[in-house]
Structures are given as C-alpha cells and as structure tokens.
C-alpha cells in the first residue's frame, strides 16, 4: 500500500452472477486527481465502481482508501469515510423534490447549519437546480437529474467522488455541460474517479486514464498519451 494514494486497488477480482466480471485489476487515485476508467459496454467498469462503493463483495484483492483496507466496511460506512458514489442511471429519488434529494445526500452528517451552507453552495454550483428546488426529481430532465445526482453526492462532503457514466443517455449539449462541471469540481481539488464510455471526453477531462477490456486493464497512463495512442484511437475514439 502506497500512502501517497487516496485510493489504491490491488489485484481486485469480482464475480457477478457466476461470471468473473473483474479479473484482477490494479489502479490508484492520488489526492486531487481526476482519473478516468474507460472501456466499452460490459468491460466491468460499473462492477468495479460498485465494489469500491461497497455494494458488491469482492472475490479477492484489496481496496485501500486513505491507507486503510476497506474490506470490512459496508456501503453506508464508506460514505462516512468520505467516499461518494453517483450511481449508474443517476438514481435520484424520483418522488422527493430537489431540496429533499440534496438533504438526503447529507444523511450521514448532522450539523444542520453546515448542511444548509452546503445546500447554498450546491445551488450556486448548479443554478439550474436552484430554479427547480421544489420540483420532484422524477420530473427533471436527464441532464438535470445528473446534476442533481452529482450535487447530492457532494452533499456528503466527500474526499473521493466516484462517477458512474455521467454522460449516459444525455443530449450532446448536456454532456458538454456535465463535463464542464466535472472539470470545475476537479479544479476545486476534489479527487475523482470517472467511469465513462465516452472515452474522448473522459480523457480530455482527466489527468490519467485506465483502459478496461473484458474485466482486465489493458492500458494505462497519462490521459494525453492515451488520447494519442493508436490502439485507443482505433477502439474507442473512432479514429
């Protein structure tokens, strides 16, 4: 375990419904870094993230977070440790309004005054959500729901933000907007692990990247290098 890393995964294997979905991967995220994990559909990216969040049990391998082995920690305990997940498909609480969704993000905290301050910060970061604060989350557009899911995750004051396919099912313009926000959050010093099928956008935003193929990491390196890599270009960048 390297103390320089905020998150370190070593030889992680996850079996999912009888299938070995993740076949021994290692990756790391340093504090303040934006790391992208790219790969095609079914490569095991989401399974990796779900395991990191404690939603799936690993078959073997280790996950270290802030130098501690996360093995014993349940999903809800990882949130109090500062890990926040923006789940695949956003997972907003459809029948609660925007403010209630955001407050749910602060479930693990109890300082009411600080929570209210953060609520204002989120509305400043996402003015669109402020306009819709009383609206039910289920009636928001896909992009607004993605913003809400991200803001909700930030409400737990995480040190590591884990984003699962934030561009999924969104209009191109909205995708641009979401990625602008991700860069903005990253520029403020947040450590981010980003999972994406949209490799170009993810690598443009990230400092480092990993390429995952059928459960294993096949390439890794600086994001710029990956963007210029022939194999990556052929497989993921359409060129």
């Amino acid at each position: 375990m390297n103390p320089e890393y905020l998150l370190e995964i070593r030889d992680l294997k996850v079996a999912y419904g009888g299938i070995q979905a993740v076949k021994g991967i290692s990756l790391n995220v340093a504090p303040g870094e934006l790391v992208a994990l790219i790969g095609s559909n079914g490569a095991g990216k989401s399974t990796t993230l779900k395991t990191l969040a404690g939603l799936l049990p690993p078959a073997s391998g280790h996950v270290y977070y802030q130098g501690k082995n996360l093995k014993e920690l349940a999903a809800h305990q990882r949130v109090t440790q500062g890990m926040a997940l923006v789940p695949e498909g956003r997972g907003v609480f459809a029948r609660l309004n925007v403010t209630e969704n955001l407050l749910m993000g602060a479930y693990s905290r109890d300082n009411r005054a600080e929570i209210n301050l953060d609520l204002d910060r989120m509305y400043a970061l996402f003015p669109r959500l402020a306009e819709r604060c009383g609206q039910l989350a289920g009636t928001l557009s896909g992009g607004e729901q993605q913003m809400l899911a991200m803001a909700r995750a930030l409400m737990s004051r995480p040190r590591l933000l884990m984003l699962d396919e934030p561009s999924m099912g969104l209009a191109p313009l909205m995708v641009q907007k979401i990625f602008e926000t991700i860069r903005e959050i990253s520029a403020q010093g947040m450590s981010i692990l980003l999972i994406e099928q949209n490799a170009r956008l993810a690598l443009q935003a990230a400092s480092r990247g990993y390429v995952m193929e059928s459960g294993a990491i096949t390439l890794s390196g600086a994001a710029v290098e990956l963007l210029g890599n022939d194999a990556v270009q052929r497989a993921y960048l359409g060129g």
Partner: protein
Amino acid sequence: MQNAPEKRLHKLLHSRSFWVCALLLLPFATDALLGHGWVRILDFAMLYIMLALGLNIVIGYAGLLDLGYIAFFAVGAYCYALTGSPHLATAFPLSIEGGVHWPFWVVLPFAALLAGGFGILLGAPTLRLRGDYLAIVTLGFGEIIRIFLNNLNAPVNLTNGPQGISRIDPVSIANLHLNVTQPLFGMEIPSVHLYFYLFLSFTWLVILASKRLEKSRIGRAWMAIREDEIAAAAMGINTRNLKLLAFAMGAAFGGASGALFAGFQGFVSPESFSLMESIMILCMVVLGGMGNIAGVILGGVLLAILPEMLRHSVIPLQQGLFGKIIVDPESLRMLLFGGALIVMMLYRPAGLLPSRVRRRELGSDEMAEKP
C-alpha cells in the same frame, strides 16, 4: 362577508376540539340511531385502522410489499390469548394453576415486542428481495403462521388447533373491566363503548407515532430506500437495518392490535387470520392512499364499515322489492368491492387521499386531518 357561515363551518371542521367531541359522542350517537351492533362494528373499524397504519409503515414508507401482514396480528392475538386464558395451564400441567393472567400493561408491550421479533424473522431472509419476490415470500410467511396455529395442538397442545382459544380475559385497566357496563361520570357506559374509547386512544397513539416517524430521520431513510435502494446505500443509509426496522415496527403495531382484538373478542381461532384479511388490510392502504396517514385512515373506515352497511341494506331492500333474497349479500359485497377497486385504479390510482407527493403535484393544500 357573504360566506361567513361557510367560513365558520370550515373553521369548525378544522378545529381539534370539534373532532374530539364528535369522536367521543360517536358511540352514543351510533348506539341511539343504529343500535349496539354498530358500535361493535366501529370497534372493529378502529382495529382495522391500526392494522392499516402499521402496514402503511412497511408498504407506504419503506416500500416493502408485505402480503402476510395479518400474521403479526395473529402473533399478538395468540400472545394475549395464551397469557390471558386457562389454556396454557391445561396444556402444560406444570405451569401455574389456571394460567398466567398477566396484567394488560405487561401483555400488550410483550405482544408488540414478540410480533416485532417475528417481523425481523420475516425480514432477515428477505432482505435481498424486492417487489413481487418479496410479496410471494411474505404471503408464504403469513400462511405458515396460520397453518402453525391450526396444527400446533399436537404433539403439545399449544394453540388448541382449529377450535381456537376461548375464555380469554377481557381487557381490564386499573381494575376497570371493559367487558361489562361500567358506571363512569354518572353514566352507565356499555362495554362496546368502553372498548371504542380504548381502541380510539390506541389508534390516536399509532397515528401520532406514524406522524413522528414520517418526519424523522428514520422516515426519510425509509423513503430513500423506497425510491432507490442502491442510491440510498450510497447516501450512507444502512439499508439492511432500516429495512429490518420497518418490518419490526410495522409488525409491532400489528401485534399490539392483535392483543387488543383477543381481549375484545374473548376468543381467537386461526380462521380470523386468513390471507383474505391480509389482502383487506392491503386494500385499505392502497385504496386510501399509500403513504398518507389520513388516506389510510379513510381506507380503513370505508372498508370496515361499507360491507356492513351493504349487509344491512341489501336484505331488506331485496325483500321489499322482490319479496325474497335473490343475490346473497356476501357475493354482492365481493362484486362491488372488486368493481370499486377497478374503478379506483382507473380514476384515482394514487388512492382516495394521495400522499403529499401527489398532493404537491396537484398544487392543493393540506387535506382533512382525520375522518
């Protein structure tokens, strides 16, 4: 100020003291107008409301579809029956002569706790199940409990099988026996009225508890689980414990009302706890408005009282019109009930009084508090 009388009426309908007085006078008014039997029906309506509110915690708040809820009512009822009748003493000659006969304030929390324990027993193996799968398991659980009650008269006669347990002590609070007419405040108050007041106060407690729970941290966590379990876990909610808590809490309310039922009836048998009863209570919750306390109460009142009204009107009506009974009220009841459910699903799918979410969508204000 042309609508001053309307305003006054509006104010009256929203004042707490008006409703308290109305509810206190209700058994006397019912007795005078319709007779004793109807006060008894009101008593049962109160029990049903308690059950529906308990089930509302499991289904309306936490979103766990429980089709075997009546089992917890049965656990509470048999708990009261076994501790409050001579049956245990005859089944186990070693035990105390004539039965244990615990006081009401001991047996009631015990019944609630025991039912809560059964709630966890049901919840633990079903934690990973949702929706239809959970419904099937809970349905099976409800039947298992009933079949156990039906057959546990051998090898040791614990439940007395299909004959049920009789000679159960009536509820008595501070030496006041509720099974006989009591002189109170210079009036002769019949037994059914006394039970009505007892059930009314417990219903009030259950409403209070439901309201507090809804607004609490626990209630918010339940709602998050109902909406999206994975996202709820990602918020830092301990989904396992909170789901178990929902099962236990709902079951405890069911157990307490079961104990009250046993004391009121003086007799329990497995046939009171059939699948149909579970479905009736579920219908009360769904018909009234899942997740909304006022709606659930309305659903309970309607489904407990309307069938009785039908029973009492259909026979005289048919005899008056045709001189004989053509349609049996029981089958007519099911026909109308089924029809009403279909109409509801078509025109008011969220229930008669939808929960606050739907209300907010429609942009209207608070609706009536109590029936």
